[in-house]
């Protein structure tokens, strides 16, 4: 019994050594989540849910599920304030003003995905599919690790794609 057990252990060690000889190379996982801080869940959007549904919704249907906001830093907070102002302007159908406010927000904090999302929304409501699609794409880059935002962005993408192309 004992010699058999010894053989068994030796066999296992040999197998392990053979296995270790073929160790796979080190491959580093995608470092995006390490290079950049994950977009943490932040306070919900400051804008109140719409009581009157406009003919074309400004935000995706999931009004009850508040989308998370980006990590706070001074620039991000200031940018989000502008973004909130722009959302009100969009609801008031002041689209040119909203776009300019969002452009200010982008200039202030180019890394904010929320600004691109609402720029896409404003351009969609203005009927410019090409610009809306580009901004939707830019928003997606920034929210690629955020499932809630990505759902909204994909919904928006579908709405943009269903638009009739306008000159």
């Amino acid at each position, binding site marked *: 019994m004992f010699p058999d057990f010894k053989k068994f252990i030796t066999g296992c060690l040999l197998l*392990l*050594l053979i*296995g*270790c*000889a073929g*160790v*796979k*190379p*080190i*491959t*580093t996982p*995608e*470092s*995006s989540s390490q*290079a*950049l801080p994950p977009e943490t869940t932040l306070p919900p959007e400051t804008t109140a849910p719409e009581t009157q549904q406009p003919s074309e919704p400004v935000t995706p249907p999931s009004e009850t599920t508040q989308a998370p906001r980006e990590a706070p*830093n*001074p*620039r991000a*907070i*200031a940018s989000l*304030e*502008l973004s909130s102002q722009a959302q009100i302007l969009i609801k008031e159908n002041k689209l*040119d*003003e909203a*776009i*300019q406010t969002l*452009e*200010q927000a*982008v*200039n*202030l*904090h*180019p*890394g904010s995905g929320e600004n691109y999302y609402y720029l896409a929304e404003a351009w969609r409501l203005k009927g410019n599919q090409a*610009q809306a699609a*580009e*901004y939707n*794409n*830019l928003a997606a*880059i*920034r929210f*690629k690790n955020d499932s809630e935002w990505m759902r909204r962005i994909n919904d928006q993408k579908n709405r943009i794609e269903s638009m009739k192309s306008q000159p």
Partner: protein
Amino acid sequence: MKKKQKEPSRPKRRIWRKFTVAFLLFFIAVSATAAVYMVLLSHKIDQRFAGRLWDFPSKVYSDTTLLYTGERINRSLLVEKLGRLGYREAGHIPGRQGEMQTSARVINIYLHDFQSPTFNQQSKRVRIDLRDNQVEDITNLDTGKTISLLELEPEELMLYYGPNRERRRLLSARKLPPYVIHAVLAAEDHAFYQHHGFVIKGVLRAIVANLRAGGIRQGGSTITQQLAKNFFLTPERTYSRKLKELLISVLLEFKFSKTDILEIYLNEIYWGQRGSVAIGGMAEAARFYFDKEASELTVAEAATLAAMIRAPNLYSPYKNPDACLKRRNTVLTSMFQEGWLTEDELKTALATPLKPAPYTPKDRQAPYFMDYLTAQLMELYSKETLTTEGLSIYTTIDTQVQAAAKDALDRGLTRIETLYPALKRSDPEKQLQGAVVVMQPKTGYVLAMVGGRDYGASQYNRATDAMRQPGSAFKPFVYLSALDSLTPISKLSNTPRTFMIDGKPWPVKNFEEDAPEELTLRDALAKSENIATVNLAFADSFGSSPNIADVNLATAPGLKRVVDISKAFHLYPSGPFYPSMVLGSREITPLTLARAYCTFAADGVLPFPLSIKDVVDKSGGVLESRHARIERLISPAKAYMMSDLMRSVVEIGTARSLSYLGVDWPVAGKTGTTNDSRDAWFVGYTPDILALVWVGFDDGENIDHATGARAALPIWADLMKSLPQYVSGEWFVKPPGIETRTICKDSGMLANKCCPNTTEEIFLTGTAPTKTCTMHVCSSPILNFLEGVKKIVPGF
């Protein structure tokens, strides 16, 4: 006989009758002529007042400025900006609009009112607390509440003056305090509300004085007469003109109310000079001399302005304060004598010192940008519209960036001349020149533009008009063209060789003579190797053929790829295209190049360079509203890859001196020096901002050793260090389509744990090597065993 003597003779009666008839006819003719003349005058008045009374120059504004808690700022640039916005150092807590108080830690400002269709600022007092050049807190002093985001009003940059070079704003006489009107009446026409256009006594006195002087010397004009003279008559002094003035005055009084006449008068009259520009109307005068609305003037200030009407430059509080003070006091005394001031009010006003707002003539700001802007505006509006209709043009310019760019260029060029005295020229028109373009890459906003060293010496806008060879600054577009087939670790030959174009040799040299004979694509771009770049551009043409003389580069596929990229990036919309363009031999303007680089910094979308945001008419209607327009050219992954490659230029390549110059945050960039050393370039960017610097001589003279890294790069560094508000230190978000692998630097294959030289490298998805390094084999089975156990047993 006696009876005959009493009766006038028949001939005499006839003469008398004829005389009477003639007189009557003459009287009727004169009356009819006068009536017709009055009707004509009346029509003329109607016509004049029905149309536009004044010309209003259009104004150009900068963009607004955002301040927020936690923002890093350049304090001196901010304080300078506040000064240009018209905020004056009060030396105490600001008590009225336009005042500020600055100290090392605190800036208190009493904000102006500012209204535009897209920006409304209500006057309020704010306190900005600073710490270590950072905004610590912003407080509304009126409410005590914290302001998280404060937007300062746009800055007036330029006016499009007509031939009369006059600036004017309008006011409503009905909104003025009575003492403002009384001051004007006391100075010019205290019987204004009693007369009907002219005062007989005054006219007679003037006639007597003029007869004695042998010509028109004295006017004796009422306000109505002055108005008639200003609007309808030439300045000549004749009796006929004076008569006409009286007739028009009477008609004006007949047609308009006293308040209307006074309002037109207050808006019309000349109130002195602001440099070369005339000040028209009381509203503009109140703003210029006292930096406030006319309705906010004090009694003493109103009397000062009223005192100036007679001779604005003679009684200017700046040029001749003693004469101004004396006449102001005369006006105040006259107001008291008319019963418009109490004795106490008079005493207080007389005791008030003459204290006009400080005036420092401003240099013309961003003059090259203004020329660039004007060219665009002229496509939309006529010159007459711009000079008369009072449009407000809101632009993208950030005046802090503009000031920093100009200063950095000035300092940089002076430094180069000191370093290389041979480059110094005594003739201002021939001196070493430079250009700076600063853009926000995501939106295409042109934040600053400096088109030359001294606009006074040369108005040639090098930023937009100078066609210069980009040299190595063009290389990123060549490397981009190869990304479908090559990766950052692809090895490129850098061995000196002679390339052939149409059978003729094309000698390509590297800048450094001891350049390596082979290097990776990343290193080749970082070190800006010319031979490697040509090999990269035309790699598929050479193939495995050792004899490159067989290849005609002019028809090589590599050139077509570069040409396609050039066209897509709007670098060169049309030909001619030739192989040497891959080394930047084809000329381009700095603005075009800066715009193309924006694509790398903007996830692959090319923005339109935006300079006009809004054009608003005088009544506040928006005529034009422009937005950022973006066009996708390359995938976000390729854009990220290019930025990452150009980060190596800064970290290990030709631009590594940036770190010695204090730029310690992640930057992507590329230097450029043309082969014949005529141009030095540096284009650098972060996710927040992109700036291009060009240095060279207009006539293409050699700039010797002043390369892109030595001449242009330090200017870029100086500029960026002045703009902490645009330095976040963040890097680009890695988009989908990019993967990272650990690579063995020796074999270029995936590293195993035994490879001694490894590096993290990024690849476009699907292009990373798939095979593991075979050059380095792990030799220790025990080590392998332990590694294996580690994988099986966590925590081992």
